[in-house]
């Protein structure tokens, strides 16, 4: 330190070091507490009736009303249904792409990723076009082929909601199972086979127990995510007359006069469900410890399926057709057609809806501009905070850094609706009354997506040896100088990935925005939701295609930047 101090006179004085470090890190910590901790505190206060009153009667009332009970039961059914569905679809697909010699494995893998990247409310909209009770394309085909009187399938039903959400969230089970199967060492299977086990016995007795924790864990994540997906719950559930907790919370605040206490109480209930699910999931994931899944490279056995390749391929292609190709396809067809009920032909082709969506319609244009601004701002701030939290965790011994890390990951388990209620209660009043401005949306996005930035920054810093910075410091660099010239340049690609991982879900966020936006602060998701309400389906599909294109391009950029995509990682990012 003596050497350093003399080598670089002023900047390395201990006092200065502490102040710059203190200011940067302290600011990030304060922001985090303010954006995540403070709204959560208000959620609890709100459920107790603050500021109007104080007591347990609101909680009691909220939990004894039959309509809230119905919402809870429906929500649990939904979670159970999508969890099971994610196993039925995700596990065979994961096995096929990870372990078999089925053709088109990479195509199937990419299409599962695509169905996951597509915002689920857009999938829901698409399925109204596809499976609307009478006019839906698939129903019309079935009517034409089999002579049904009316469309045999009705998307506006509980199975319909489970289906639409299931084809989105099965990706959790798929990716977790896929990576677990990829890391099962072939030597285990070979031993079993040498001992005389048949192929199916190997699969059942060796592979299944090894990947079971991953499957359960994926199914739990799928179930938890489906609890929170306001968009499809509202778009399909409302016409189906089925109420879920997020849509119930929305209606509670959206009716007049707004019932804050009831909304807060229901939000807490949703938090309890999510946290319980996540705790269970963590427990299952930890049981992986006995598995031979490790960091070292493993050799995996590819199983030659022979003629069985074809039925498996047919199954896989059917799944991804319904989860990605058909919904995105129908949105594109609608966006480019003069009339969506007519088949696509040269005469029916038009770019007018894109012109209207991107340049003419006021709400739509404002939505695009706002979403771009908000996603950029939220991603930048989240990366700053995330990097600071990761730095504290990895490079310092500051007390309480673990707690901070936990706080930064916490929103991952908070549904957007819940986050929005907390933020609404917190920022509707002094000291920072930003309700009714675009800043409240920025706060919500940073709070919701900060875990993605934190995790990504953490992974990035982990890969950079601290000795590089230490070397810099020893040769006289100040703390800030070492950060600026050593750590940041080395971690730039990783931090750019972190930026994009926040930008992508923030760009299309719906479930928190719907409670927080106002005239002038509409986002792209609001434009889609509201214009869909008004039945302007052509503009809606053009906007949807635009959104998917943006999201897809950025996701491809993430994949390219990070070498391996997040789709092979542990858990994909949250969205909603």
């Amino acid at each position, binding site marked *: 330190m003596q050497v350093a101090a003399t080598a670089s006179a002023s900047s390395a004085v201990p006092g200065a070091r502490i102040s710059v470090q203190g200011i940067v890190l302290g600011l990030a910590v304060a922001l985090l507490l303010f954006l995540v901790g403070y709204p959560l505190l208000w959620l609890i206060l709100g459920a107790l009736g603050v500021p109007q009153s104080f007591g347990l009667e609101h909680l009691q009332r909220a939990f004894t009303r039959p309509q809230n009970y119905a919402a809870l039961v429906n929500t649990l059914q939904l979670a159970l249904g999508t969890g099971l569905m994610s196993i039925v679809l995700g596990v065979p697909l994961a096995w096929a792409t990870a372990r078999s010699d089925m053709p088109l494995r990479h195509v199937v893998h990419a299409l599962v990723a695509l169905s996951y990247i597509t915002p689920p409310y857009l999938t829901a909209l698409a399925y109204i076009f596809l499976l609307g009770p009478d006019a839906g394309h698939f129903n019309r085909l079935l009517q034409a082929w089999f002579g049904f009187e009316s469309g045999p399938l009705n998307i506006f039903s509980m199975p319909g909601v489970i289906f639409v959400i299931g084809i989105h969230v099965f990706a959790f089970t798929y990716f977790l199972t896929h990576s677990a199967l990829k890391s099962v060492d072939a030597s285990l299977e070979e031993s079993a086979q040498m001992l005389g086990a048949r192929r199916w016995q190997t699969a059942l007795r060796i592979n299944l127990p090894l990947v079971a924790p991953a499957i359960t864990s994926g199914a739990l994540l799928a179930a938890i995510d489906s609890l929170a997906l306001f968009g499809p719950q509202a778009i399909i559930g409302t016409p189906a007359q089925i109420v879920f907790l997020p849509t119930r919370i929305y209606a509670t605040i959206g*009716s007049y006069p707004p019932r804050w206490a009831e909304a807060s109480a229901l939000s807490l209930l949703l938090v309890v469900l999510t946290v319980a699910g996540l705790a269970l999931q963590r427990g299952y994931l930890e049981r992986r410890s006995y598995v031979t899944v490790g960091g070292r490279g493993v050799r995996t056995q590819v199983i030659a399926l022979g003629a069985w390749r074809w039925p498996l391929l047919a199954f896989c292609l059917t799944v991804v057709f319904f989860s990605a190709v058909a919904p995105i396809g129908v949105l594109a067809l609608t966006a480019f057609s003069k009339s969506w009920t007519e088949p696509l032909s040269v005469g029916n082709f038009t770019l007018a809806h894109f012109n209207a969506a991107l340049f003419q319609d006021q709400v739509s244009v404002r939505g695009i501009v706002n979403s771009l601004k908000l996603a950029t701002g939220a991603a930048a701030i989240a990366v700053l905070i995330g990097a600071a939290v990761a730095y504290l965790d990895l490079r310092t011994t500051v007390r309480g850094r673990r707690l901070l890390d936990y706080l930064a990951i916490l929103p991952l388990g908070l549904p957007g609706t819940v986050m929005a209620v907390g933020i609404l209660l917190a920022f509707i009043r002094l000291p920072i009354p930003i309700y009714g401005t675009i800043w409240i949306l920025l706060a919500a996005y940073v709070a919701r997506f900060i875990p993605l930035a934190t995790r990504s920054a953490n992974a990035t810093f982990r890969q950079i040896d601290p000795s590089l910075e230490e070397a810099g410091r020893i040769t006289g660099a100040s703390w800030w100088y070492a950060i600026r010239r050593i750590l940041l340049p080395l971690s730039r690609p990783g931090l750019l990935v972190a930026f994009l991982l926040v930008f992508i879900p923030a760009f299309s966020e719906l479930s928190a925005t719907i409670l927080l936006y106002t*005239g002038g602060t509409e986002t792209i998701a609001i434009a889609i939701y509201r214009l869909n309400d008004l039945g302007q389906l052509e503009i809606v599909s053009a906007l949807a295609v635009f959104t998917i294109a943006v999201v897809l391009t950025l996701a491809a950029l993430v994949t390219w930047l990070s070498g391996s995509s997040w789709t092979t990682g542990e858990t994909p990012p949250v969205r909603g």
Partner: protein
Amino acid sequence: MRIARRTLLKGLTASSATTLIGSRAWGQAAGPSEAGQIDLAKAKAEGKVVLYTSLDTQIVDAINAAFTQKHGIEVQYFRGGSTDVTSKVLAEADAGRPQADVVDASDLAALLLMKDRGLLKPFKSPAMDAVAKDLRDPDGTWITDRLTQAVIHYNTKEFGSAPPATWADLGKSGMNGRLTYFSSPNGDGAPRIYTLASHLGWDVVKAMAATKPLRVQTPQVIAQVVERGERGAGFLQNDNIAWRSKLQGKPTDYVFPAEGVPTEIGACGLLKSSTRPHAAALYYEWWMGAEGQAILVKGGKYSSRTDVAPPEGSTPLSKLKLLTLDYAQYKKDKPKILDQMASIFGGEWGN
């Protein structure tokens, strides 16, 4: 016009009796308290107007564009269902962060509630002379801007020469699986269904619910569902949408049932908390003036002004039996009524 004056007036006097004490006298609120006091230069300096409305965006866009062209003042607006608009105004008032200058909603009970809370500013407008006495607040805090009637909207290919003609027809067994109706999750559909029930009895409504109607989120979507033939007929609460659908040459038509037509009073008012009082009042005058109202009529709405003609090719209101709601009572009983809707139709009503 045969609005049931008595019921309406009864409700209004009852509600104003309780609120008069709290409401300020003319001229005490900031800015102009009558049209003559609007200062054009100040209005321009205030820069913009913020409107919360439940009217169709296409109509609002047309009214705003003409206003901006005339006065050079931008209009920013939030458009949602009446309940969205109201809950937003109330939430912002709770927060002490009012945003809107002018509010318009197609649920008079909402405006009455805002008046109760002391949120609306009394304003003397020349438009008051053109609007029937029972359609405006004697204190000047709100004024009816439009009257919207519920109709039976049907697909002509589905029904041919024998479409449903009465509300009772919609509850017949032949309508099973063929009807559609609307309510947003926060209960926007409730006032007019309740109007029907309070005049014709709950059985008519229960019979409709028994046909398993398809519920959609807005009246606009009813028209599309009927146009596509997904459902044959709709309990459509906005006659202007049926009017437009027919005008556009879609295979649809609509009837005003002889039992009476639930009418909905859309009203607007100025917010006391407005920080742009001159621009707001100027806009209010434009919205309620003959020119602004004519744009509204072009969109198929019936104006509340007696000097503005009804939409082209539509039945004059004087020829219709209009069923109205006692809004003061509705405001009071709303939680109970929403509970009843939820128990009859199921689903979310914001209750």
